[in-house]
């Protein structure tokens, strides 16, 4: 296998990580909605924590994306 195709395969493998971040973000919002429907009065006060969880989960996906881009365009 030559280096160019190995690079493409590596970038594709790295991009799997974005999918796992999607699971995480979906979990954050799903759980929030789940509990917000049980207690709608308390939901508005927790939006900051919702977006904090979203940001932390999303960061890992973005890092996977960065790794894919680094493999494709830098090395």
């Amino acid at each position, binding site marked *: 296998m030559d280096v160019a195709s190995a690079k493409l395969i590596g970038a594709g493998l790295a991009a799997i990580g974005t999918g796992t971040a999607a699971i995480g973000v979906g979990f954050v919002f799903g759980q929030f909605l789940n509990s917000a429907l049980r207690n709608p009065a308390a939901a508005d006060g927790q939006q*900051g924590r919702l*977006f*904090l969880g*979203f*940001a932390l989960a*999303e*960061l890992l996906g*973005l*890092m996977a*994306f*960065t790794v894919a*881009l680094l493999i494709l*365009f830098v090395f």
Partner: protein
Amino acid sequence: MAAAGKIDPMHQFTVEPLIPLHIGKYDISFTNSAAWMVASLVVIAVFMWGGMKREVVPGRWQMAVEGLTGFIDDLVKVNIGPEGKKFTPFIFSLFTFILAANLLGLLPLALVPGWHAFTPTSHFSITGVLAIASFSLVLIVGFWRHGLHFFSLFLPAGTPWYMAPLIIPIEIVSFMVRPFSLALRLFVAMMAGHILMEVFGSFIVNGLSSGSVLGFGVGTISFLFIVGVGALELLICALQAYVFALLTSLYLNDAVNLH
């Protein structure tokens, strides 16, 4: 680009000098990145000046400005507490600058041949400076208020002594990685969105210019998709600006109140 049929999603991120300027061996040209930052500054200034008339019965414009300032005021009050009021201008500047830069970068200026919108926040150098600004404010405030007690941030109160060797390195690493993660999140989110739109935009152009039925189908589907992605991008622009402001205020909370 369309004629060649080759998709080049990274071209939109090139920084081009508009007014070349060199001092010694340093290149301090006025680039398109700087121009778009000035543009976002102008937008913010016009928006704020238009709504700061202090009328007793506020009009629409003043309500919009009051909504924005009230939103940041609430954010700071909830996350830092009453002592956080003096950080409101900083958080507000960060939020409005990132929001304006993000949104201006989405303008469909490419309709004018030879032009294209540029997002300053899709560059790590810009978001890195913003993150370093907020991180250094955290350090300055922390050491100013608590002196060397600030290091107790690395050991949460009530941690059993046998856990300390494990907790302290984890907390130090998570503290040190903050400016990096703050900058990386904003920059990658903006860049990913622009690459996605560029790629699907190229699908439309290449699909239609191929002239075949399959190409037309791909172009139509890509067009429908890009409408949705465009709406999502608007959401992401606001969300990333909000997340940056939220995380900065949370980090400031650590520095002001310890934990």
